């Protein structure tokens, strides 16, 4: 049985369409990420699932119940907000038990649940404090505790980590993942941070301008983006997009690249059938930074791992890797190389291209060609 089913859901304010027909199905126990840039409609969709925002058309099922007209409290959900939304006048204990009290859970049972939640989240010592006396991370934890206490079928998280500093964000990210593994409930999680999306999600729904761009596992979305938008949005540093002419190469096809003043033709690995029609024209080739690296002997002499010397424009050490910027076909291209192989600004360096990982897009529409 699916935990959540969103069917052709639309939202308009007058003539303005915020959501243009969204279809998403989530299996029970899955961790779904709604990710996209600001204003893509992801938070609106979450609010509609929660019942805090009305639906213009379409259907939303939680479990097998149609919830379009149910009020938030009857949807069996719990939500964690960006601002935490803790009740400032209540202690942590009261914050957690408020929802139980509203549902007329007996007092003894309330106490038992609060203690249990406090144990799971290791915040027993905070129970008698007011939210103002807590740090950002502790407030976040209380907000999660409030959600867990109700034991709902569906958890909704609305950018829960964006108010935390970078270090705490990574810690809480792990904590949320642990929490999900422990309680095994379905989670719908909104974020604009593609790293959160990749690390947390079982499934990712990439949204842009009110439309669902791609729905799949993190691996699918990362390795097989359906269009230019998804390819550019997921991954950091983002995928390189290089305009390349398609030319004949041997019996097949190749892409023409201008690197450090030399023209080279690299094979389009296995993409010939889709690119045949584009011969002699330009397409957009996408290649991720980690697929342009230093010369790796284990792949040397493989036809889909061609090597070309390039001039280093900028070199940025990040610690584990060094990011090298070179110019190819007039575009700045970022490559990720091992620090021990990295050359400095102005020097020449041999770069190895993994052509088996390249993707091709229609330069006009941005849709995937191969």
């Amino acid at each position, binding site marked *: 049985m699916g935990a959540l089913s969103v069917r052709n859901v639309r939202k308009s304010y007058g003539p303005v369409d915020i959501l243009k027909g969204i279809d998403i199905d989530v299996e029970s126990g899955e961790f779904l990420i709604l990710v996209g840039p600001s204003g893509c409609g992801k938070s609106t969709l979450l609010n509609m699932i929660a019942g805090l925002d009305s639906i213009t058309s379409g259907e939303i099922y939680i479990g097998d119940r149609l919830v379009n007209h149910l009020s*938030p409290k009857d949807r069996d959900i719990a939500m964690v907000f960006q601002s935490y939304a803790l009740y400032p006048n209540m202690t942590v204990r009261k914050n957690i038990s408020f929802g139980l009290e509203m549902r007329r859970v007996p007092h003894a049972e309330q106490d038992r649940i609060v203690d249990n939640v406090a144990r799971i989240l290791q915040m027993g010592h905070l129970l008698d404090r007011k939210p103002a006396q807590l740090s950002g991370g502790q407030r976040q934890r209380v907000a999660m505790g409030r959600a867990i206490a109700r034991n709902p079928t569906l958890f909704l998280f609305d950018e829960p980590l964006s108010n935390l500093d970078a270090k705490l964000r990574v810690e809480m990210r792990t904590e949320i993942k642990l929490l999900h593994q422990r309680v095994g409930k379905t989670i719908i999680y909104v974020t604009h941070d593609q790293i959160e999306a990749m690390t947390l999600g079982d499934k990712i729904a990439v949204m842009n301008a009110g439309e669902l761009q791609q729905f799949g596992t993190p691996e699918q979305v990362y390795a097989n983006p359906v269009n230019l938008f998804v390819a550019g949005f997921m991954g950091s540093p983002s995928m390189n997009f290089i305009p390349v002419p398609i030319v004949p190469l041997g019996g097949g096809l190749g892409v023409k690249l201008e690197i450090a003043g030399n023209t080279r033709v690299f094979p389009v690995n296995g993409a010939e059938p889709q690119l045949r029609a584009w011969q002699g024209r330009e397409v957009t080739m996408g290649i991720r930074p980690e697929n342009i690296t230093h010369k790796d002997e284990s792949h040397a002499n493989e036809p889909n791992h061609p090597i070309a010397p390039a001039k280093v424009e900028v070199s940025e050490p990040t610690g584990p890797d060094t990011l090298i910027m070179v110019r190819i076909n007039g575009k700045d291209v970022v490559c990720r190389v091992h620090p021990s192989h990295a050359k400095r600004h102005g020097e020449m360096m041999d770069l190895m291209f993994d052509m088996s990982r390249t993707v091709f897009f229609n330069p006009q529409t941005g849709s995937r060609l191969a």
Partner: protein
Amino acid sequence: MADPSGAQTQGGSRVGRAVVYGLLILVCLYYLMPLFLMVSTSLKTLDEIRGGDLLARPQQVNFDAWIKAWDSACTGVQCGGMKGYFMNSVRFVVPAVLISTLIGAFNGYVFTLWRFKGSDVLFSMLMIGCFIPFQVVLLPMAQTLGRFGIANSTTGLIFVHVVYGLAFTTLFFRNFYITVPDELVKAAKIDGAGFVRIFLRIILPLSTPIIVVSVIWQFTQIWNDFLFGVVFSSGERQPITVALNNLVNTSTGVKEYNVDMAAAIIAALPTLFVYAVAGKYFVRGLTAGAVKG
């Protein structure tokens, strides 16, 4: 370690500080002068007032004028002092303040956290109420009170002040609740709380600073009001401001300045008291939400 430039700035700031404090003290004295005159005059005997210097301190502290003002001064033909009118004022000011504050809180809650179609228009219309002078509503209000059958009664006066005060209290609470994050209400909705319960359990407990502002404002306005009091009440039921006017304007007998002053202070004491008790919240409430807490 000595730092000459640092010492110099410190010296400079000390002079500046002295100037600032000096000015503040001067202004303070200027504003306190009338109060001083009133208090000292109220404690003098009539002979002393007639014969002496206005600024001189009383030779002997004498509370006779206070006792007379409270207990037996004549306002027109009545000679029962201010005490009855003081209680009149308390009787209608307290309910009027509480009711207008409570309704204002409720209005503010609806206008910010439960917006509906046309709520902005309605709010703007309500705000016009802040700009309507008292005099404009006198006649229609008299008709309305007559129709409701509460003309010339304490209930009527409460009604008038509640209606007139609503625009202000609504504005106060609305501007305060705008700083309350929507997510708080959303969280409470998901927790299962309804419209009324969210107001009583979540929103109202947050509102202390703005409640204080509203109470001080309304108390001062209503307690000090003269026009509505003189128009919509008469005789025994008149508020203290009207009684004070009558007392001071009595044309029979000797003009007793000490009694007038004592009566005026009695009439002003409750507002002074409210400021003294809640004043620090007043400033805090007016600037609430201005700085992220």
